[in-house]
């Protein structure tokens, strides 16, 4: 997996974070030690496997990391109930927030309900290493505010069609990790996974793309390794939360090759 995480991107630093209350929201103490958990957002269109990815991450990482989950749904508790029934994390560590039928608002325009949930989980079960925040299944435009998520992965799947990666959108082009999920289904839906990964990589200008199937242990290991590496960067203070959206024209000091 190619990776590109610049050490400094001062123009994208989230100075607009709505709250940096020292008790809960300062990611690092002055001496560089982390004060709070890494907050990883999981976004993507409905039905692409976000809840399944959360279950996989909990199953694989809960043995080594102190974790909790916040879900955002159109109907408040659907995903939370799915995860609780999956038995991958103690049920009290999975919280659902009311989104007033606006899951997009809850992760981007007004993140207060989610911040409350994250802070409550840290207060009750902290210190935590990792809090996963799942977005409600929305369309391609919903991404997390950097005021809520330190990093985010965006999930699409092969069943949505091979074109999706090429069409782009803020999550596809700018999320910290793009997952192309359900690769085991590719032969059945006539999608060329390699071509889809190549399209996505071009759209993402070097940011990582992962072809994932929960039936493929090697791909699951790549996912968990990515999270572990992210956590190391978060703890060392070298990870800078970036905002993938909204859809803004982007520019580069270099020219694109062959695009």
């Amino acid at each position: 997996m190619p990776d590109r995480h610049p050490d400094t991107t001062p123009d994208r630093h989230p100075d607009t974070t709505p709250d940096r209350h020292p008790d809960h929201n300062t990611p690092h103490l002055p001496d560089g030690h982390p004060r709070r958990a890494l907050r990883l957002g999981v976004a993507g269109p409905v039905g692409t496997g976000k809840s399944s990815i959360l279950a996989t991450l909990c199953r694989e990482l809960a043995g080594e990391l102190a974790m909790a989950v916040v879900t955002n749904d159109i109907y408040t508790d659907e995903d939370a109930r799915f995860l609780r029934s999956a038995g991958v994390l103690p049920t009290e560590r999975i919280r659902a927030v009311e989104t007033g039928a606006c899951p997009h608002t809850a992760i981007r325009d007004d993140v207060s309900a989610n911040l409350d949930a994250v802070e409550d989980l840290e207060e009750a079960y902290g210190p935590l290493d990792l809090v996963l925040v799942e977005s409600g299944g929305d369309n391609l435009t919903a991404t997390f505010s950097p005021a809520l998520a330190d990093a985010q992965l965006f999930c699409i799947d092969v069943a949505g069609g091979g074109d999706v990666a090429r069409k782009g959108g803020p999550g596809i082009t700018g999320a910290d990790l793009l997952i192309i999920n359900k690769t085991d289904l590719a032969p059945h839906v006539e999608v060329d996974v390699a071509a889809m990964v190549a399209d996505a990589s071009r759209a993402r200008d070097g940011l990582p793309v992962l072809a994932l199937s929960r039936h493929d242990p090697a791909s699951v290991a790549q996912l968990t390794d990515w999270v572990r590496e992210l956590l190391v960067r978060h703890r060392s203070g070298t990870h800078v939360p970036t905002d993938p959206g909204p859809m803004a024209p982007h520019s580069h000091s270099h020219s694109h090759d062959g695009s």
Partner: protein
Amino acid sequence: MAGLAHLLLGDGRLPVGAYTYSAGLEPAVAAGLTRDRIPALLRARLHTAAVTEAAAAVLALRAAGRDPVDYGPVQQALAARTPAAPLREASATLGRGVQRLARRLDPGHPAVAALSGIGPRPLRPVALGALGAVMRVTEEELARGVVYDELQTITSAALKLLPGDPLDSVVWILDAEPHAAAAVAEALAVRTPAGLPARTPPLTEQWALEHAQRERRLFLA
């Protein structure tokens, strides 16, 4: 830039979590309320919960102007007049968003610092009193903001719960104006926490208790 703060207070886009609340509409719809009855619900809220909430916010704003700031009496008076636990919880959840904003605007302000002394959490009108002090709004602006927000909350939630022509919402709110003005006047006339009106409509309380037991909710309450 004077004159914008009170507009912000009544703006549903103020990022303090208001979109998670339907001011009783979702529980009412579950109990059978239909779209044609929304104006009646607005009037009912303006004669009941909105008066209590606006009056509590004004009392909190006055408390915020004293030295030392003590929100205890108004918080207790309001909690005592909010007998349904789910409604107290919803109010505390919404108050937390308001507190977060007030802290962001002026963490060192005595009106903001005193909020942390309230246990377990400040109810929304109390936090709004503190925010009003930070934003330097008048008592009347604050009361009108609370009352207007009540109307906007219900009509916005109606777009999700009882969809129809969105322009209807504007008509409903304008039609409710005399009732809103009366609610503001009544709230401003309250002088002490002991005199806070106990306007708790039993049906609303009952619906809120039923709502808390329901799965597949959209809104807090």
